[in-house]
């Protein structure tokens, strides 16, 4: 009888020790234990688009690769162009750099400020103008081209002076249709993390708000001969800004 009580006691003590070992780390680090986002994987906000079994590819015929700028970019200025006047100033600047390509679409014009931020009060105390950015992306027959190699990014300072210009542009010609996978098949690949380029962040809790067929352009220093179709899944986490997750659309 006494041995039975002893055994029960030992079992109870072991159970308590095990509980402490398993539960304590979770209690100790509640923040790090929280999952990233509420959902697992990718959540579709809307139905996937229909598509044909083929899509156009494009041959790169010519590449414009310009990057000019100076340290003046980061210094504070008295005044910088407004977001309304900046696109016209950017187009004028582009006249000396081969002009604005026909397949360029204005993405945004943004003012950039040096912010004096108080970490104690979590507030911006002062803002000093640095430059105004005007950005154009490439859109071919309604299909967006994602990536650093299909972009014009112009930074303007006082009096609309050009402080920095990046023009990475590939001029393309139709290169024939290629067989593609459907958006549904592409979504399966996305869920399997079979991405064209893996982002450096969690691939869970992502809400897909838009899906498009488009192209990917590598950065201006890479030799890319073709634009091949990619499925672009625009997804966001925690209500943040959408990011394009890319899946190779070619049917192998």
């Amino acid at each position: 009888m006494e041995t039975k009580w002893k055994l029960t006691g030992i079992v109870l003590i072991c159970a308590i020790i095990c509980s402490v070992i398993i539960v304590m780390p979770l209690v100790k680090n509640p923040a790090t234990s929280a999952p990233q986002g509420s959902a697992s994987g990718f959540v579709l906000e809307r139905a996937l688009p229909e598509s044909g079994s083929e899509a156009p590819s494009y041959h790169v015929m010519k590449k414009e690769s310009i990057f000019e700028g100076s340290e003046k970019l980061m210094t504070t200025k008295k005044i910088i162009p407004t977001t309304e006047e900046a696109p016209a100033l950017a187009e004028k600047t582009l006249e000396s750099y081969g002009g604005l390509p026909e397949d360029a679409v204005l993405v945004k014009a943004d003012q950039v400020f040096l912010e004096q931020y108080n970490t104690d009060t979590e507030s911006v105390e002062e803002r000093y103008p640095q430059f105004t950015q005007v950005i154009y992306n490439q859109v071919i027959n309604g299909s967006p081209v994602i990536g650093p190699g299909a972009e014009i990014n112009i930074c303007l300072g006082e009096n609309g002076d050009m402080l920095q210009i990046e023009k990475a542009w590939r001029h393309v010609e139709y290169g024939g249709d290629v067989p593609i996978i459907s958006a549904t098949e592409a979504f399966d690949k996305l869920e399997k993390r079979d991405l064209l380029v893996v982002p450096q962040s969690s691939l869970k809790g992502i809400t897909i708000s838009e899906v498009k067929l488009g192209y990917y352009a590598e950065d201006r220093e890479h030799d890319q001969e073709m634009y091949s179709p990619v499925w672009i899944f625009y997804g966001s986490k925690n209500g943040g800004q959408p990011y394009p997750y890319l899946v190779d659309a070619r049917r192998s």
Partner: protein
Amino acid sequence: MQIRKTGITIVAMTIVCAVFCLPVSAYEYSMTSVTAYNDGATYPMLPYRSEMRSTLSTWLTGTPGWTERFYESNGWVDDTDFGTTGQGLNLAELHYHYGHGGNDGSHSYLPYVYWPTTSLYPSEVFKKWDSVNKWVIMDACSLLSDLDWGSALKYSHGILGFTTEKTPSTDLPYRFLQNTIDNDHTIAYAWQRATQDTYGSTVTARVIFDTDDQLDNDHLSGQGTVAANEYPDDNVKYISTWTC
């Protein structure tokens, strides 16, 4: 007289040896890299772990004469590398971290291999980055979307990183170091230029500096002026954010 001459010769030879023969390492850098995670579905394996290290090594240990203070990767990376106990990145001027970044909706964090059990939150390095360290590069997604990381800067100068998603690229450290070493650009501008050159408009980059003087004037050690440390320490930081 003969003994005196011999003594002078020995002293002179010792000085010559000290100057020319011993390795001179004026500046040091450190690196951490987490590319293989236990939860691969959430944080997929990242490429270029060794390439990233060799990019830094090639640029810094060449003519600029830097030495690598420490390098830790994957399961060896922990809080102490980020100065939580006063050492780690506090032992070197420049620290480069390559890996995934995370955000739990309230704060951003660096996940380690055994995430979610192990990770680094800004609260763990609050005012921990001291005077020997000057710059910390966070080559990871979204980390600087959380301005609390700025509180890590006690006397250290700046943090360079991103506020959005991004993808791995060895071009990023290559271009940053080329900008700082070959072109003698300031740290802040070298980062601006490298990020804009490497990524498209879906990516947003940011710098957080302890003082505006450091943001304007800090060059990589040995490549130009480095502004003074802030003194006394305060809670004001200087932030610039741009679309790449």
